[in-house]
């Protein structure tokens, strides 16, 4: 798990790019057992490696000066001019700007609605239609063309597009959540593996990725959420960390942690001197100030923008975390553990993640044997039938966090309830987003007609293939 195998090495580049066989990413997680397997795959290791790599880059750095006595500490802020942006990160941020500009072309529908705005579907249509050309315009041609030499082969572009296209929410459900956010992280991870980013020392390029690409991505997502009133995918109401996002809490807590020399000495406790105090998240004025420079506070600021009511009541998890006494490094470590358990280990979230050649559905020989934890074992299996009352599952709070054992991510539901057993009903290979009404947790993949709007609970157990009868039986 997160704290037992923290990699300090950056994500490995593809050995032989030119010979590599790319693949159209496809859904592989169909039930709870698949989630257990996922945690042993190369894809999982690569996601965690890349996440740790980006995270480490956001820790302030200390350096000994040439006089070998005096030390300097450097910390980085949002919009920090001292963070150099490589040509590729600049291009990516321009690509995101371009996607944001489509919002102006598709104003929200003023007609009757329940919650999510149907114009989001039009925005997504534009993205679908224009994405191939935009990728050609903003991404290096030599990378996109990899693997596309003969007409039979899948190109790198195809594989990249699947993750990028899945990064902005579900047009079907009119929602957005951590599953979509994960898709964007994977998109960047693919580019990394393909060598699209220059190799640099001391996390310089990674910092550019976080501050120059991920933060603008989060800004775009927030604009989409506000414009089209996207629901939180798989919302747990007040009992989730955040309705939509997770990554800014990881990177933002790293920004406020003690300075390090190298990723290997990331401390388990402590804060950067002069960092705001964790309890300050409940103070609107401090949040208003700190959100300009810090990703954690910027995410909290967005909650203040959209929610009314006492912070401790509408965001009790974040409020509780603000009581952590051991500083931002402790919070950062906890966030990584929580991401592992609540996003990557949750069926409702990761069920939508598609696997290709770069994030591969293959066992990682280095993976530790994962003992089936309660939350993985109690996820839905292919033959799930819950008919009798069952006794409360014994759960390990640490493992379980706030979601149902079979429930995947906290990410995919919106204001509506989805059945926890519900699995993907999205058109593969595009990963579906986290924004849905309550849905059945047991739901599995099926092509489903677009709902009139989001905001419903989905069934966690929902699965594919139910055919509605044409008329009631006599």
């Amino acid at each position, binding site marked *: 798990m997160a704290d037992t195998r923290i990699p300090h090495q950056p994500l490995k580049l593809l050995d032989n790019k030119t010979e590599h066989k790319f693949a159209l990413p496809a859904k592989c997680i169909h039930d709870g057992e698949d989630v257990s397997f996922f945690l042993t795959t190369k894809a999982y290791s690569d996601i965690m490696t890349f996440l740790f790599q980006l995270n480490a880059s956001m820790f302030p750095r200390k350096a000994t000066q040439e006089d070998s006595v005096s030390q300097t500490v450097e910390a980085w802020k949002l919009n920090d001019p001292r963070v150099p942006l490589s040509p590729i990160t600049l291009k990516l941020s321009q690509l995101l700007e371009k996607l944001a500009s489509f919002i102006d072309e598709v104003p929200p529908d*003023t*007609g*009757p609605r*329940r919650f999510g705005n149907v114009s989001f579907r039009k925005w997504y249509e534009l993205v679908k239609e224009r994405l191939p050309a935009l990728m050609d315009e903003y991404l290096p041609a030599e990378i996109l063309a990899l693997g596309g030499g003969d007409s039979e082969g899948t190109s790198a572009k195809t594989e990249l597009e699947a993750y990028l296209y899945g990064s902005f929410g579900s047009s*079907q*459900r009119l929602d957005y959540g951590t599953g979509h956010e994960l898709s964007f992280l994977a998109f960047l991870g693919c580019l990394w593996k393909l060598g699209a980013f220059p190799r640099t020392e001391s996390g310089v390029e990674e910092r550019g990725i976080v501050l120059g690409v991920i933060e603008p991505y989060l800004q775009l997502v927030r604009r989409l959420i506000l414009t089209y*009133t996207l629901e939180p995918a*798989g*919302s*747990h*109401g*007040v*009992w989730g960390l955040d*309705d939509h996002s997770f990554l800014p809490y990881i990177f933002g807590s790293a920004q406020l942690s003690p300075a390090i020399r190298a990723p290997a000495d990331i401390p388990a406790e402590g804060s950067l001197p002069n960092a705001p105090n964790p309890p300050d998240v409940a103070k609107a004025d401090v949040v208003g100030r700190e959100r300009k420079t810090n990703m954690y506070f910027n995410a909290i600021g967005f909650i203040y923008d959209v929610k*009314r009511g*006492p912070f401790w*009541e*509408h965001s009790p*998890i974040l409020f*509780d*975390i603000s*009581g952590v006494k051991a500083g931002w490094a*402790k919070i950062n470590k*906890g966030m990584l*553990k929580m991401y592992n358990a609540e996003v990557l280990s949750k069926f409702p979230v990761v069920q939508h993640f598609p696997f290709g050649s770069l994030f591969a559905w293959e066992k990682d020989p280095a993976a530790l044997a994962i003992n089936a934890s309660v939350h993985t074992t109690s996820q839905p299996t292919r033959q799930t039938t*819950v*008919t009798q009352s*069952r*006794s*409360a599952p014994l759960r390990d*709070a*640490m493992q379980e*966090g706030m*979601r149902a054992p079979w*429930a995947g991510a906290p990410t995919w539901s919106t*204001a*509506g*309830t*989805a*059945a*926890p*057993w519900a699995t993907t*009903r999205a058109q593969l290979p595009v990963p579906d987003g986290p924004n849905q009404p*309550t*849905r*059945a947790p*047991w*739901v599995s993949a099926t092509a489903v007609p677009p*709902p*009139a709007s989001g*905001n*419903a*609970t*989905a*069934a*966690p*157990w*929902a699965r594919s293939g139910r055919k*509605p009868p044409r*008329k009631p039986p006599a």
Partner: protein
Amino acid sequence: MSIGGSDLDQAILQLRACRPIPESQVRELCYKARELLIEEGNVVGVDAPVTICGDIHGQFHDLMELFRVGGDVPDTNYLFMGDFVDRGFYSLESFLLLLCLKVRYPDRITLIRGNHESRQITTVYGFYDECLRKYGSANVWRYCCEVFDYLALGALVSGAATTLEPSDAPFADLNSQASMPGLDQEIEIETLNASGEVMFRFARNSEQSSSAAEPSQNPSSSPLPTPARTGAPGTGASSSSYGSMGSSTGAVLCVHGGLSPLIDTIDKIRLLDRKQEVPHEGAMCDLLWSDPDEIDGWGLSPRGAGFLFGADIVKCFNYKNDLSLIARAHQLVMEGFKEMFDSTIVTVWSAPNYCYRCGNVAAILELGEDGGNGGFVSRANGDVNRAQVLGEKVQGREGPGRRYRVFDAAPQDSRGMPAKKPVADYFL
């Protein structure tokens, strides 16, 4: 300890103050509640007058606002259509208070099951975590889930009046008064705000209507095909509501989600074995999970459970079962309520500013008692639209008079901050 008499009143007082009661008391309460609920049929018979409420989702302070607006128990009879728990911060206090009231005034309050009243769903959507946090163990969650298994699946309201006695309340917007139907007309729908002022009044079988809430509403500006007649907010001005059709009023079926392709008569609901966890499919599941939609027949639900059902399904069901209306909850509606399919079905939503962010208002639906107006025969006024929709054959029963009270989220000033911040294991 035993919970009865004064203990029960004490528990009600404590819960009204939003303070959880001790675990031993919860256990006793749940035991009592199960004894009571086991005697109820799958479809509880309820007499008008009654006030019908939709989803609560642990929004305790808004539930208090609901009681302020709708009247207190036992002065007002209530029917709650489920989804008491999950997502909100106070699922525990909200559900236990409603359960206490049920045990204390069993004939004054009816609770039916929503899709969130389930072990599987509460472990995903918050109630489990809330219990763990507030009691340090899952015992209370387990007691509550045992009660969930005994909640009825639906209710059938009979004896509702076809016509509203217009309230003598002032108008929210005096300018709109002139355009409201006069008091000499049969009032079918009235919408009041939280201060009890009339926002809107709608006469039966009449095109004359007006909305104080949306005076500028203009069908021609709508991008969607709009019926020629404009209705009250929530009555589907922009959907398909023309006010109800038909003659004398039938009963009102209340269910959390909607209909099931496996259920064509209410008697079939009565035959289900309900005392179990909500199954993933089948009739019981559908009743708690389905949604009406602008489709023909049945469709797959994006929720992964239950189905979507169209106007034809509702009209046939209502006709066959002599219903004038189906009241259901389950879906957020920005205006608090929404009538669909010529007012044959209404969604009632009672969680204002849902999840602290949706910006919606909430509503409750009051059905009045038929005060000797049972012989009311509707006038044929030659409105050509009215009989067209499904033809004479499936013409439904005339809807009951419906008074909607719309309210906002409760003010938040008086809520103190908790002293303790229990830290999740990830951060230890």
